[in-house]
């Protein structure tokens, strides 16, 4: 480097210090630039991946609307139940064709009172009619 003229001893010493500082600070060896190899692929993937997210959003919205419609239909079906007459014919579930109607199993008659509790139970003490505080 060509030295600057008209400078004092101190400035020459400063030159040496500055040169030393900058050389110590500069990376050695100089690192090469590493272009991001994944950048174009990531860019393309981000464009591609945005499509399924929109589809997913639309599907979930449709599912939500279908759920709301089905729910409101069921609520309307519940409204046809008469508290006195039971389920109205319009709301009763129709019997599927090809499937025979099976009546519910008959309830067996109640057993005689003695056989209901075969284990003898200890007789309960009757509570006293009057109550007094213990002293």
């Amino acid at each position, binding site marked *: 480097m*060509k030295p600057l003229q008209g400078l004092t001893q101190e*400035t020459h010493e400063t*030159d040496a210090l500055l040169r030393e*500082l900058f050389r*110590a600070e500069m990376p050695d060896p100089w690192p090469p630039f590493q*272009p*991001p190899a994944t950048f174009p692929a990531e860019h393309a993937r981000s464009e591609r991946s945005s499509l399924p997210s929109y589809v997913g959003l639309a599907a979930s919205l449709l599912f939500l609307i279908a759920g709301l419609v089905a729910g409101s239909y069921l609520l309307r079906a519940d409204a046809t139940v008469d508290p006195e007459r039971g389920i109205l014919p319009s709301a009763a579930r129709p019997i599927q064709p090809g499937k025979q109607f099976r009546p519910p199993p008959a309830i067996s008659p109640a057993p005689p009172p003695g056989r209901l509790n075969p284990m003898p139970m200890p007789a309960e003490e009757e509570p006293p009619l009057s109550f007094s505080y213990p002293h």
Partner: protein
Amino acid sequence: MKARPQAAASRSAEFDALYQSHSREVWGLAYARLLDGELAMDVTQEAFLRLWRQWNAGESIINPRAWLLRVARNLAEDDAKSAFRRNGTHAPQSLDLVQGREALPLEKLLAKEKRGLLRAVLAELAPADREVLTLRYALDYDMKTIAEVLGINSEAVYMRMTRARQRLAARLTELGVAGP
């Protein structure tokens, strides 16, 4: 089908050439702002990465050198401001003067101390003066090239250089680092 890889290879070679010719001066301008070699290198890489992205996006840059220098300056400025917020009024490298637990060889310690003081004195100068000094002492640029990089005339470069060196010399003499 072969034209596309060839174009990409030629673009990559062009970019490499750009990096080889200008990365040091980009580093120099970043260093002049940050006074930290590693941070300046990070800024340099970031500036070139941004240029790479612009090229990949198909945007044309008429003067890549000027573009890079401007981006590096802005990045370094932003980083310096955030470092100021993090560390208060002192740059992080001012902690270099704080002695660590492990003992260093005396010469290494003295050199490190001198460099720390020099950095502290450099930090007192205006960023424009530091830019001139960095390009001169780190890259051995002459006045004309410095003027070209900074977009100013050679007289202004000479004035800044002389003023900065005189200030530095005076401060270093005061601190007992240079002079009698």
